[in-house]
């Protein structure tokens, strides 16, 4: 029984069947990649997992609880964090403040009117935030405005914001999209390091096969809204169906 169990999920947009009967099981503490050509339904699937979309059919169970019908903030409280394709950060705030927000957010999402306590007085939170920024190698950028960061740094910051919450499942939506090769390798190293340091399950949606094969322990190939095959990376590489549906296209 995996930490995330997707059973028979289907989603239709008007006349387009974006997802049809997706079954997926992600094992705890594994790195699971979901790949597939454009329009295969990867992002739709991800959106169904975090509550942005509600599937028409099927069930999504996380840790034995259904996530369907829950609001994004409730799903996050269950222990799922998400890194977006275009980094979603607080652009007007400084890097440190960006990370402080998830630090102050209670795990259960409880509202706190701590309107008269000073942030600078909360040294434990600051330490926690600075530690995670050191982990993602951004310790010298804490005072910068998040909007002024490079794209790679923005994504790093977003990852720090997710990681500081210590999620059980981290969803990564094309974490290296639009990155230079060096940056991509840094990100791979970063993710590997995170994985080695703590118990965390990662689900990665990715186009870049280099990233996928460097990180993933299992790979699901999605084509036209349905899973084509699911296996360990070595098997996927040579799989004829995959070659046809995806790799062939990518190399051609």
């Amino acid at each position, binding site marked *: 029984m995996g930490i995330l169990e997707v059973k028979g999920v289907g989603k239709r947009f008007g006349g387009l069947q974006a997802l049809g009967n997706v079954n997926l099981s992600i094992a705890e503490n594994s790195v699971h990649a979901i790949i597939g050509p454009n329009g295969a339904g990867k992002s739709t699937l991800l959106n169904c997992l975090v509550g942005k979309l509600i599937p028409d059919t099927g069930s999504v169970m996380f840790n034995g609880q259904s996530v369907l019908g829950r609001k994004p903030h409730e799903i996050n409280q269950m222990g799922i964090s998400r890194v977006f394709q275009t980094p979603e950060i607080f652009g007007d705030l400084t890097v440190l403040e960006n990370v402080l927000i998830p630090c102050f957010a209670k795990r259960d999402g409880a509202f706190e*009117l701590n*309107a008269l306590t*000073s942030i600078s007085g909360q040294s434990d939170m600051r330490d926690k935030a600075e530690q995670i920024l050191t982990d993602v190698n951004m310790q010298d950028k804490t005072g910068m405005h998040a909007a002024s960061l490079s794209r790679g740094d923005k994504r790093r910051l977003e990852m720090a914001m997710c990681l500081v919450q210590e999620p059980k499942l981290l969803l990564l939506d094309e974490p290296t999209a639009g990155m230079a090769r060096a940056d991509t390798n840094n990100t791979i190293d970063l993710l590997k390091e995170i994985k080695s340091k703590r118990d965390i399950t990662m689900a990665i949606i990715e186009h870049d096969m280099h990233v996928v094969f460097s990180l993933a322990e299992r790979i699901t190939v999605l084509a036209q809204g349905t899973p084509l095959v699911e296996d360990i990376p070595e098997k996927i590489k040579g799989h004829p169906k995959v070659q046809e549906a995806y790799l062939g296209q990518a190399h051609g």
Partner: protein
Amino acid sequence: MFGLDKKDTTLLLVVTLLALLAPFILNPFPEASALAQFNAGYPDLMQRFVIYGIFAVGFNLLFGLTGYLSFGHAAFLGVGSYSAVWIFKLLGMNVLPAIAFSIVISGLFALLIGYISLRRSGIYFSILTLAFAQMSFNMAYSVLTPITNGETGLQLTLSDPRILGQQATADGSIPVTNLLPGLEMRQSVQLELGGWLFTFNTGYYLAAFFLLLAFYIAIRIFRSPFGLMLRAVKSNQQRLNYTGIHTRPYTLAAFVISGMYAGLAGGLLASMDPLAGAERMQWTASGEVVIMTILGGAGTLIGPILGAGFIKYFENIFSKINENILHDWFSFLPQGLQDFVVTIVAPFFGEGWSLSMGLMFMAIVIFLPGGLVEGGQRIGQLFRRKPAAGDAASSQTTPAE
């Protein structure tokens, strides 16, 4: 000091000094001089500076931090005024219970309106608040006449019960508002120094005290985790949701706090002059606080106070300038040219003050979205950059794109 860092403490001290010394600062011209018309150090105007300052500081807690643009904030000001006048009618003429009651009632009213309006964001939120405020305004004129006294406005009468005070003074007139028995709000001490006349008014200093308190609380909120959450709401609500935070309790708390500030301002207005009318709730009045806040600098600490002072000063001083005064100003020009210039300039003064204000407001929104505070910073940079040109490139806050 007071749990503030050095920069904020300095800011608070500066504002405190300005507030305490306002009777001097605002009366720089000798009483007999031609420039005395630019003096603003008379109680009535000084009271309005600080009261509208409180209103704008409160509005900024909502708009400046969360980005939710309420177009109905005057409703809370109006409710505050009505509540205070009712306390004067029922209990007595001491202003403190009246002000406390104003804050509570406005807060409750804001809770109700905020609870509904905050279900929507963006322009829908603006329109919802506008609709609520306009509805309150219309109701104050019609069905709620027993509470608001309709078009006449709510006033004190000799037959009011005033169970804790006196119904009428010894000479049979309506008693006046006071802070302590014998310390009336309208009392002033005047000081004549050479040609200068300075007035120190009880009402002003009470209002100034509340402004400082309100400002202090605003600074604390800005620097608190709660304030950080509010700024995060403005910056990226989606990320906040995906961080496990339900934003509505935060925005609602900000809305209620900001409504209480407006209630305090309304209560103070009524404490200075115990009457309340529905026109205080009209949406153009809500627009005015929006203008003050933006003009000064939304999202900054000092901006709203500057904006309120600026608007109220020019509203009072500009609007007193008539064509005769303009002719005086331009008397150095030859007659024909003088007439011409005055004809051109006149529409912007006197009655035309609103025109100048509208143009100024547009200019600020277009060219200087950060308001006067940003303007000040830019000028400051201009001077600082000259000695050390080239260090701007290393500035950390310069956006990459």
